[in-house]
């Protein structure tokens, strides 16, 4: 029986190649899309899951009122939190504190040097986090103040195949004041699914050593603190108990403490006013939905084509029923066909995925590998079976329901409800396609807007690089020499970076301060004297640092937002207490964006100092970049012999802020393309069948004098109507969702009607083109041939 069914299936394929191809292309590209999304999603969901205790591993976060009526969320904590958790809180089994370097550190031996990303972590770090240790014990690696645990790659780089244990490395980080010789006590590996990547870990004792005791208090938050809770501890109860933990320690502190799962950090890292608001999980959900929709569109093609060409299979059903086949057997036969087709499509999809995986990795910035393990096999089989059943069930039920006598007499008429279902399915397909087109164009427009938005500073032709090694001590000298290079317009430095700026503090004092504005949190950056000029930031009033030498250390410049929120009437010359007593406000700059455009501009203070500075910037003239860069490289090599000059352009770095949006944009572009392609394939098939079904009608109309153009319009309009309805359905939904997505940006494009109109027109154009070609072909046929058939 199965053999017989397969035989029929194969011969049907051979006879009706075009619908087979439409189904195969549709289903296999949809399955490939599902497969890729599956790989991507499982990679996302598996991030950090390798930590042995991940179920009990928590991160300490703080909600702090931002002085403007809502809560800001910080992951940084005071190092006092570590000792407090270890000694006072019985629910905590173990805890660790980590200080992460913002920028790279210089690591060298006598003959080699490299920049590397590192952190400083307290003793239990490797007990909480299961980064596998290739050398050393997790209990002791971080015990010694001069210990360093290095990554496998770093060990290989410095010591080759030799045993690195006990060897020494000189590590220098200007910004953080680390400079010394460290002994390798362990080597770790970082699994691919770790969200954090770093090259070395120093002891937290080193961190505590260089902070003097005055600086360690509940208001100085520079470390991340993680805790391993006891098995069975209820996180909700624990969070409500711990909420006022910091407030109880320090009555002036307004922070509320709470714990979140460490592994949630990656996917659900966004907080708004103290509430979890998603994060990357949104994209996981988004792409899963898109994949399901694309698959649904392909399944719909199968259903529509199968029922539309029912007349071809009905005879078979009738004959088989007449010779004694019951309905169950026939349903089984049709389901077998659709399931076999889906497995065949799966086969094509797998090959396709293997071919494009590298490209996909490029687009998504991942290292996905297609390995067939038990989970994968189960998932694939389940998805494919489901696809087969979903696409085959309606045709199977539909085709087998007719009476043999009626079928064989040719008395079956297409019922109204059947047409309704088929049309409904087409509308569904096109609604999704149109929605995706709108989504893609909105995402692109917003990204374009971000790229071109006036940020309040000029990001063009600014080279940025880290303050490394020789530049730590001789930064000013280097900059003076750099300014002598002909192509260099200006040069300066700053703490943090223009695109990632995290430093903030509160508890500042100024005249006329209100209770509410006491809570104001300020970003404050240490910058060079010519920072404002180099970055092209506009002054609103007052003076910049440039002419304030030698007393510029006691001068401060605020941004407009700060002045407004502080309520200062005549700010220039006012003395305030901020990062030092008695600071004189000498100028106000116009607001500039120093974070991503998701966030509003916050109060900001600029101070003219060299401590904590890690980033140098050089503004160069356009047109002579090559010579200028060469000269700068030579200069850099003079200060840092043997170290590569790793610079970036600020505008590139700025674009990286929106990397995940860029990726979403590129991916959704392909998904939208795929959706509309598969939809059109289906429409193409349907149009062909309609033309065939109405062959006789067309011939009679032509014999009676209707022109080819009229027939074409008549045939096309049936489908155009469906696309028009789809537009009506898709656009309001697209509008709502686009509005919602844009809502998360503080600076966003207004939604304009033409995004929707053009998406609709595009879908309409593609549909008309697809159907029209079929209609013209049908209309051009010689009517005699069709009528002779009778």
């Amino acid at each position, binding site marked *: 029986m199965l053999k017989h069914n397969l035989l*029929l299936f194969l011969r049907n394929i051979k*006879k009706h190649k075009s619908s087979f191809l439409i189904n195969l292309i549709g289903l296999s590209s949809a399955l490939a899309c599902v497969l890729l999304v599956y790989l991507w999603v499982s990679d996302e969901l598996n991030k950090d899951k390798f930590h042995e205790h991940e179920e009990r591993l928590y991160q300490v976060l703080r909600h702090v009122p931002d002085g403007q009526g809502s809560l800001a969320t910080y992951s940084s904590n005071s190092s006092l939190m570590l000792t407090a958790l270890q000694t006072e809180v019985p629910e905590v089994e173990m805890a660790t504190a980590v200080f992460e370097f913002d920028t790279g550190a210089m690591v060298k031996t006598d003959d080699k040097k490299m920049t590397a990303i590192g952190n400083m972590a307290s003793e239990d770090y490797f007990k909480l986090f299961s980064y596998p240790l290739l050398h050393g014990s997790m209990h002791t690696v971080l015990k010694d103040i001069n210990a360093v645990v290095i990554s496998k790659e770093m060990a290989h780089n410095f010591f080759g195949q030799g045993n690195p244990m006990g060897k020494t490395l000189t590590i220098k980080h200007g910004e953080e004041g680390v400079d010394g010789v460290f002994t390798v006590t362990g080597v770790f590996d970082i699994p691919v699914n770790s969200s954090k990547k770093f090259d070395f870990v120093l002891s937290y004792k080193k961190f505590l050593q260089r902070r003097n005791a005055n600086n360690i208090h509940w208001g100085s938050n520079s470390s991340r603190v993680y805790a391993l809770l006891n098995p069975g501890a209820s996180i909700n109860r624990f969070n409500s108990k711990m909420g006022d933990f910091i407030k109880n320690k320090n009555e002036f502190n307004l922070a509320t403490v709470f714990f979140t799962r460490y592994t949630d950090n990656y996917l659900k890292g966004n907080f708004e006013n103290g509430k979890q608001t998603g994060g990357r999980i949104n994209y996981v959900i988004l792409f899963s939905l898109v994949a399901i929709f694309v698959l649904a569109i392909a399944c719909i093609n199968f259903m529509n084509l199968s029922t539309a060409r029912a007349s071809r299979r009905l005879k078979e059903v009738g004959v088989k029923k007449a010779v004694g086949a019951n309905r169950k057997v026939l349903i089984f036969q049709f389901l077998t066909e659709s399931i076999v087709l889906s497995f065949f499509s799966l086969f094509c999809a797998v090959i396709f995925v293997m071919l494009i995986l590298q490209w996909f990795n490029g687009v998504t910035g991942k290292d996905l590998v297609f390995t067939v393990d038990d989970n994968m096999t189960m998932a694939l089989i389940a998805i494919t079976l489901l696809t087969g059943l979903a696409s085959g069930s309606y045709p199977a039920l539909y085709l087998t329901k007719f009476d*043999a006598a009626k079928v*064989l007499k040719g008395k079956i008429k297409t019922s109204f409800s059947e047409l309704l279902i088929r049309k409904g399915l087409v509308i569904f397909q096109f609604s999704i396609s149109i929605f995706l087109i709108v989504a893609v164009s909105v995402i692109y427009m917003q990204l374009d807007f971000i790229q071109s938005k006036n940020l309040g500073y000029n990001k063009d032709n600014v080279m940025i690089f880290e303050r490394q090694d020789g530049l730590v001590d001789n930064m000013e000298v280097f900059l003076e020499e750099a300014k002598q290079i002909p192509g260099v317009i200006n040069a300066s430095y700053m703490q943090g970076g223009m695109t990632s700026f995290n430093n903030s503090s509160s508890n500042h004092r100024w005249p006329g301060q209100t209770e509410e504005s006491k809570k104001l949190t300020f970003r404050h950056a240490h910058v060079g004297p010519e920072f404002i000029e180099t970055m092209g930031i506009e002054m609103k009033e007052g003076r910049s640092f440039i002419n304030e030498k030698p007393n510029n250390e006691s001068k401060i410049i605020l941004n407009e937002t700060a002045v407004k929120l502080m309520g200062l009437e005549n700010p220039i010359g006012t003395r305030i207490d901020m990062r030092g007593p008695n600071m004189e406000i000498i100028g106000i700059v116009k607001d500039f964006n120093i974070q991503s455009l998701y966030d509003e501009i916050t109060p900001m203070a600029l101070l003219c100092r060299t401590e904590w500075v890690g980033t140098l910037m050089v503004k160069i003239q356009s047109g002579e970049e090559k010579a200028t860069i060469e000269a700068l490289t030579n200069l850099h090599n003079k200060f840092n012999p043997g170290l590569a000059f790793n610079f970036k352009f600020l505008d590139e770095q700025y674009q990286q802020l929106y990397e995940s949006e860029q990726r979403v944009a590129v991916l959704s572009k392909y998904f939208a393309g795929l959706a509309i392609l598969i939809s059109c394939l289906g429409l193409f098939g349907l149009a062909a069948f309609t033309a065939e079904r109405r062959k006789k009608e067309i011939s009679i109309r032509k014999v009676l004098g209707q022109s080819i153009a009229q027939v074409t319009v008549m045939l096309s309009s049936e489908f155009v109507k469906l696309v028009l309805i789809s537009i009506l359905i898709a656009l309001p939904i697209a509008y709502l969702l686009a509005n919602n997505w844009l809502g998360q940006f503080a600076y966003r494009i207004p939604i304009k009607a033409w995004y929707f109109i053009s998406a609709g027109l595009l879908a309409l154009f593609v549909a008309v083109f697809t159907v029209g070609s079929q209609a013209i072909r049908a209309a051009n046929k010689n009517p005699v041939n069709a009528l002779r058939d009778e």
Partner: protein
Amino acid sequence: MLLQLNNIFKWVNSGGQRIFLLKDINLNIEEGEFISIMGPSGSGKSTLLNVIGMLDGFDEGEYQFLEEPVHTLKEKDRAKLYKEYIGFVFQSYHLLDELTVKENLEMPLLYKKFKGTERKAMVADMLDRFNIVGKKDLFPAQLSGGQQQLVGVARALISNPKLILADEPTGNLNSKQGEEIMDMFKQLNDEGVTIIQVTHSEKNAEYGSRIINLLDGRMI
């Protein structure tokens, strides 16, 4: 007695009016009969044939087939009954285009749970009996109309039915091909198979032992 129809009525409702397709049909058919149903177009010939073949239901009356009351049987039992005892021959042959002659013959057996070896033997037997061994691997489209109908008859016969129902079996054939098919029916009838055919042709009707004339759903 093979089958018995008592006061069979069949109607459809159209625009509030009841249109009768079959009106008060009473019919007894013995095993071994060869019956021709005649009448003008729309007189209900095919409907009657389908009712007898249990492909179509009726609205009133009683139908006994081999002492079984068909009108009270469940769909499933009815299917079992006709599967076992009735074979159909159609005017337009209704062979499956995608299957070869051999496969077309084998197809009914698939639904009757015969083993593979049994099926092969039965198909070989039938090919032999109808002299079409040479054509067993051809597709219907490669055969003439007469040959196709021959395969149609062979397919109807393959599971040894007691009754063959033929709806204008020669309607699409030329006269020579038609004659061959009718001769075949005659021969089968001589071997003991009951045959009921619907036909327009007086000549074909004469092959039968009895003629039933229908007009507007009524026997006359």
